[in-house]
């Protein structure tokens, strides 16, 4: 019973603040992954797999945003992480994505 209650609580709808925090975290971590990819100090498999896992976290917010602004921001982050995962060896592109994601993290934290 307690397990079920805890699971139910864990799945309850998320507030805008929580979604903004989650997005800020995903964007900041994505920026870190992109930074390492831009310097060639990672492996393509890691960038691809971890980038997709982060993208899936951002998708959760994009698909059920608490506010339209959060939905737009989540969409940008999903798109950046998709691009990173699809082009793990492209260092210049990774550098640009890093900057985009750093900006997105700042915007999420300001929401």
């Amino acid at each position: 019973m307690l397990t079920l209650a805890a699971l139910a609580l864990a799945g309850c709808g998320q507030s805008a603040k929580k979604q903004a925090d989650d997005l800020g975290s995903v964007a900041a971590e994505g920026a870190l992954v992109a930074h390492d990819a831009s310097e060639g100090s990672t492996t393509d498999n890691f960038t691809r797999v971890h980038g997709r896992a982060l993208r899936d976290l951002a998708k959760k917010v994009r698909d059920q945003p608490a506010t339209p602004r959060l939905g737009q921001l989540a969409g940008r982050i999903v798109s950046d992480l998709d691009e990173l995962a699809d082009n793990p060896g492209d260092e210049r592109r990774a550098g640009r994505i890093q900057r985009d994601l750093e900006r997105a993290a700042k915007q999420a934290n300001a929401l």
Partner: protein
Amino acid sequence: MKTLFSIALGILAAIGGYVDIGDLVFNTTAGATFGYQLLWAIVLGVGGIIVYAEMCGRVAAVSNRAVFDVVRERLGFAVGLVTLVGAELVSLLTLAAEVGGIALALELLFGHSYQLFIAVAVLGLALVLWAMPFEWIERVFGYGGLCLLVLVPAVFKLHPDWGEVAKGFAPHLETGNVPLYLYYVVGLVGAGMTPYEVYFYSSGGVEEEWTPKDLTTNRLNAIVGYCLGGILSFALLICAGALFLPRGISPELLGSVALVVQSPLGPIGLILMLVGIAFAVSGAAIDTAFSGAYNIAQFFGWEWGKYRHNAGAPRFTIAWIVMLVLAFAIVITGVNPIQVTEFAVIFSVVALPATYLPILLVANDRAYMGQYRNQRLSNLLGIFYLGVIVLVALAAIPLMIITNMGTQ
């Protein structure tokens, strides 16, 4: 070299117990959330597991009896059965999570499908458990898991604030969110003293045919093995505190754990970390698969042990095969292995008192232990830690609900 091999049991039990998939993510999240403030909770957990592992290893060496033998005798059939059901459930959930963890680590290393690696992980584990002698299982997975020591140079490369790190070893509170802080304390102490560590460790002592002559080996295993596990936990928490906290990152994924090494050490660090994770999580899977089989066989008085070979202990062999099949069935549904293991850690905390009390009672029993029974220091520490365990057990589920599993 002989001494190095003789402590393999402690290293495997500690690596499997301390740095399984749930602990890896939990430690990283604790560091990312509270910086270095919770280092003291790891010290508390390491102290507790050393005290009780030494005790149950001593009981195994002197009386040739492992933990669930003792649980049934001291708690009686009914209470013993409840403890057994709880222990089996926790072992199964943890095993399922570890299988998922192996698949995730392999996916991060090689980039193929997660589902494919789940099948590879289960088949690989079955092969190892079936064919590899117990001593070699200890050595391969215990020492393979030591690739995680790459966390130690990563700590230095990240240049943490050493004054703050030192402060973290004394309990203190620098947050307004007390329930969340306590949730992490409970999780870190609980992860350190996970019951399956002592099930595996004491049964391993019987597998290795320890006698009172091996009491020094037992002590070395408990101290060196669990201190190593503790060092890895410290390193992970410090890396996360230095890298993630300033950036506002709340890690939720196994890949985030590898990132704490990749960022300071580059691709070689990353690969070592992922290989270490794969070995450590495999070690935890072996601990839990065997623990599940050990517990049930010891409780019902069946023949058990790898040393009897598969045909010599058929019900024991069937028990670990069933554990593996059930774990496969759980994880292939797509359930998040990290969430499963976080539940397992918190619920295993509730089973702690029923596991550790019988060990303390038997270790004091003159009829069993003779001259090797607990001395005053062992009893003082044993009673202190039993108090800690009871507090932690009482607080675990309310804190899990209040903090929404550590997310609020």
